[in-house]
């Protein structure tokens, strides 16, 4: 019995240390662990928690950061090397990024940090700026979300699991310097008392980049007003941010397994050198955000660890600002021309926008082991946000001349999920069944000339979702899984209420609904190869899009999308020092039920439909010192061209799956072209990995790469990095 308690305690501590939601660890019931897994096996499985998560019935693509942590890679780089994941970035470090999963993007994808929705963090923990040293792993769920992630995610979710230092006292410091005056630094410090009852630490990072890479931009002859494409260096594109979280807590107390109080502060400052394209440069506009966030996390296991409860709170006000007051325009040579009629360069009116988002976030998670083979799970997430602000140069209600941002707008959401995880046939078959309840309440003002201007309304939307996931193991290294979910996304504030200007309210808006299914098979031979094949099917209704009604616009439920996606992922260890990896993703998502037959069956526009990666890693030991390691790597990344416009199916590119041909219609002005990017690097690690030095060259052939229409990303760049672990 004592041995059993020791094992359970060890398992629980490992679970908390790894930061994964408790349901993940309880994939295998505790009793079963005791019966079938000895202590040695538990110790071995701990480092492969990423693999554990990746092999649940609900499929997750787990981006294991461990190997990349010593490299000068960004999280975006690492995620882009994963099957089925496509990150689109609008420029250099700190630029806006969005994840595309199975043709979903934008609001259809939700983001989490350690299982908690990241809305309260703004862009502070965005994967485009978080150094890989701060992260344990990234879990990417496509279409089907586990109970533990509470959000109205129509198409998927990204859960960033922050790094949890092991050992009693650890210090990790990393510094990276790269092209474009890029500096990235991170510090992770953790300490605890000898008895483990008290702990404290700090996680912090700093980023800065001038982002002054050269891009092909239209350079205008002022006399003739004719533009020609020329290479110019971006000149107002600096990004700086700092983030720090200090925390302290108690552990292993009778009343708390873990009580952690944290205080996070961050600041982001960015210059805006361009807008939605690089056609027109800006030279003075800036933006940023900051917040101070107290957090509390409580974990307690009861009843012989059969009941586990976890609670998280965060309260904060997120401040954002945009300043656009240049009374003139810049050209791509950085030359400023005063324009008397302009009060800003982004818009003629300019902007002094300040917004405040008052957030309250609560996540409650309970798991109850009702039987050695059955675990109940309940997760409730509440998020409330109240937006206030002002822009002296912004939109005003026409009849009262009051800045619409002065009027508070609130949105609160509750996402409650309950699930049952079961194991049958000696764990060969695992089953997850869950239901979810989505509820939102939006409160704001409607602009209406027909009734009354500035009339306040409160709108509610409720929906039920459900899902099911099955996994069957044919052996220790071969399994198949099938999952499906009826997913929901609730309309948001602006979609209901419009913006008081040219976007009208629409109170009849329905939540988006998508039926998502995954089917996959995984096979591996440890130390030799691993291969996985996954199929994804989606059928999406009532997608909310901004529709032009002539002079005004309105969010409406319009598009319907269906289709399949295929992902292939393989890794092969040719020998002890040589590893090969490759993956490809093909997505065939198309419109259906269109009122205009022209685009019936057309592929989703502005959505990559084929992308692939391959890589070679070499690893040599005992080169300069005993037990040191030297590794070198090469990654190749390819994205097939895609189009800003819908192309009728009959006019799509020919060639197998449309991979080689050209469209049978001239869409040259609407292309996001083929992208091919090569990255090479090398890494030396001292014995015990206390010191690591690395060098990386990204985009070594200096290819022009675009993730978004006419916004060029950086060309060739050099990066060096040093990691110290104490």
């Amino acid at each position, binding site marked *: 019995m004592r041995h059993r308690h020791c094992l359970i305690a060890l398992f629980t501590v490992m679970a908390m240390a790894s930061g994964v939601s408790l349901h993940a660890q309880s994939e295998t019931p505790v009793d079963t662990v005791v019966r079938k897994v000895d202590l040695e096996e538990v110790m071995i499985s701990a480092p492969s928690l990423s693999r554990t998560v990746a092999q649940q019935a609900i499929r997750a693509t787990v981006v294991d950061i461990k190997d990349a942590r010593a490299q000068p890679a960004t999280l975006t780089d690492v995620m882009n090397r994963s099957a089925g994941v496509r990150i689109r970035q609008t420029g250099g470090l700190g630029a806006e990024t969005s994840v595309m999963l199975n043709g979903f993007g934008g609001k259809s994808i939700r983001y989490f940090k350690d299982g908690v929705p990241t809305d309260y963090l703004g862009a502070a923990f965005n994967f485009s700026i978080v150094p890989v040293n701060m992260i344990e792993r990234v879990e990417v769920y496509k279409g089907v979300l586990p109970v533990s992630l509470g959000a109205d995610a129509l198409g998927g979710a990204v859960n960033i699991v922050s790094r949890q230092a092991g050992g009693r006292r650890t210090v990790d410091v990393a510094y990276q310097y790269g092209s474009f005056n890029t500096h990235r630094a991170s510090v992770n410090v953790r300490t605890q008392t000898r008895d483990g009852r008290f702990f404290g630490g700090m996680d912090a990072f700093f980023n800065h980049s001038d982002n002054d890479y050269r891009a092909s931009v*239209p350079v*205008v002859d002022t*006399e*003739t*007003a*004719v*533009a020609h494409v020329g290479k110019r260096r971006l000149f107002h594109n600096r990004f700086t941010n700092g983030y720090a979280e200090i925390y302290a807590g108690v552990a292993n107390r009778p009343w708390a397994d873990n009580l952690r109080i944290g205080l996070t502060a961050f600041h982001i400052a960015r210059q805006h050198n361009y*807008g*939605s*394209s690089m*056609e*027109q440069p800006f030279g003075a506009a800036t933006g940023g955000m900051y917040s101070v966030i107290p957090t509390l996390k409580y974990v307690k296991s009861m009843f012989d660890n059969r009941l586990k409860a976890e609670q998280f709170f965060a309260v904060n006000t997120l401040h954002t600002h945009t300043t656009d007051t240049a009374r*003139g*325009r810049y050209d791509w040579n950085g030359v400023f*021309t005063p*324009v*008397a*009629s*302009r*009060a800003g360069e982004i818009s*003629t*009116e300019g902007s002094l926008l300040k917004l405040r988002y008052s957030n309250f976030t609560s996540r409650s998670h309970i798991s109850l082991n009702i039987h050695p083979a059955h675990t109940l799970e309940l997760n409730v997430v509440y998020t409330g946000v109240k937006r206030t602000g002002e822009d002296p140069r912004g939109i*005003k209600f*026409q009849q009262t001349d009051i800045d619409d941002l002065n009027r508070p707008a609130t949105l609160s959401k509750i996402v409650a999920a309950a699930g049952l995880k079961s194991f049958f046939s000696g764990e060969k078959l695992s089953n997850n069944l869950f239901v979810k309840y989505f509820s939102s309440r939006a409160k704001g003002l409607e602009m209406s*000339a*027909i009734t009354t201007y500035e009339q306040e309304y409160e709108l509610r939307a409720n929906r039920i979702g459900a899902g099911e996931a099955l996994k069957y193991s044919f052996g220790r290294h071969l399994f198949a899984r099938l999952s499906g979910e009826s997913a929901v996304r609730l309309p948001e504030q602006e979609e209901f209420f419009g913006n008081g200007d*040219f976007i*009208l309210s629409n109170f009849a808006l329905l939540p988006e609904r998508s039926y998502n299914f995954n089917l996959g098979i995984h096979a591996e031979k440890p130390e030799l190869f691993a291969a996985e094949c996954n199929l994804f099917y989606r059928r999406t209704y009532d997608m909310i*899009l*901004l*529709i*032009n*009604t*002539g*002079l*005004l616009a*309105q969010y409406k439920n*319009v598009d319907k999308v269906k289709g399949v996606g295929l992902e292939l992922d393989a890794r092969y260890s040719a020998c002890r020092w040589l590893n090969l990896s490759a993956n490809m993703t093909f997505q065939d998502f198309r419109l259906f039920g269109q*009122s*205009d*037959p*022209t*685009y019936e069956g057309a592929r989703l526009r502005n959505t990559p439909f084929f992308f692939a990666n391959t890589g070679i890693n070499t690893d040599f030991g005992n080169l300069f010192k005993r037990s040191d390691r030297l590794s070198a790597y090469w990654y190749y990344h390819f994205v097939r061209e895609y189009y*800003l*416009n*819908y192309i*009728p199916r009959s*006019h799509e590119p020919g060639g197998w799956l449309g991979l080689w041909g050209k469209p*049978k*219609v*001239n*869409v*040259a*002005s*609407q292309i996001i072209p083929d992208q091919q990017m090569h990255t090479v690097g090398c890494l030396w690690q001292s014995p015990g990995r206390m010191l690591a030095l690395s060098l990386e060259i990204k985009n070594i052939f200096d290819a022009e790469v675009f993730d978004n*229409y*006419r916004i060029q990303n950086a060309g060739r760049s050099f990066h060096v990095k040093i990691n110290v672990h104490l």
Partner: protein
Amino acid sequence: MRKLKINVTKWMMLPAIAAAMLSASSCSDNDEPNEEQQAKTTYALLTGDMTQAPYVGYLTAYAEMPSGNVDNIKTSSIAAYTNGMRHYGKWIFKRMNLGGMTGADGIQRYSVDETTGSLKEDGQITSGGGCNFYVYDAATGFYIDQDRGLLKIQTFNPATMQRTGEIDLSDKLGATTFEYRDIGTSLMAGKEGKLFVDIACGTNAGKGTPFNGDPALGYIDLAVIDIASGNYEKTIRYEGISYLGYPANENQMWATGDDGALYFCAHGISLAIMGASGSAIIRIKKGTTDFDRNWIIRADDYTPGTCIATVCVKDGKLYTQIGSEAMSILTMNTATVFDYFAFEIENLSKAPVKIGGIPQSTFVFQSWQGIVVIDGKVYFRVENPAESKNGYYVLSGNNTAVEAFNVTNGGVVWGFAQLSE
């Protein structure tokens, strides 16, 4: 002090101007082309979506007049933004920031590739904003670049697609009590060597348009400029109506009649009333440079609250589109309530005749070729989703029309023009 900075050389071409000016607008194509013209004639058809930004569709060239059911997406088609188009001679022009996503403003020119017979992009002029434009003849064009000045008109050569200078009215228009004033953003039109440009006045926030909250002025001012010299001559005013032309639209809502007069539509659209009021057609007769104040067609006389946005004058008749219901801003792209009517130009007291044989249509709005003369015949744009009509009808005589072609694939018709050398 005159501030004309136009290249002198092109003004040597003035004799050609008078002959060319009638072909500048939507309703002004030559009646009967000769054999040489016919040999080089191309028809251009723009169709696409106008509901979800970016508003992209396809522009296709036809060697022969389209007929029957038409699939407008062909291997020869080129992707183009759908917010209408303008045409002059062998060219199509489009304002760059309409319907696009890049935010860049300017003029994009298309012409027919002689090898493939397809339309291609072959010239571009950039602008800092408000880029309304007007092509007067093959060598003379005007456009707005508000970054160069709100009271300046830029000149360009449509053949070379290069800016050639500017006309500065900053010191010509006199003092104003308004805090904001610009010119040419809603309307630029020309005839008989004179350029007529709108003068918009209002607040800095409203920029003189009804779409940003500025109230209607209750009158219309047009500046009259001598094209040859670039000299400002005068400002003409028409009391009692507001808003000629349209600031962010390829449809400038005016036309040159075959009688040599300029006919202008006042749309009357107002955000404040979520509809239209006071829409009208007025004119400047041939040989004059001021409004014909004894001549006006008021839309409210026929359907209160409707909007007139297209006009065509041929053989003593004026053709226009009038709704059977008041316009609502909420449904202005979808309400299928518009009919075509013919007026006796010189006898407005006589009730207009509804053109027969045509189903009701949606609002022409962004299409400048709502009514267009091609090969000497009058064509009417018709979009009626309920009856699966989406194309053009041609006037067949006795105020009736028959279907010319119907676009079954490619989206809604937003432009149709005849291009000729």
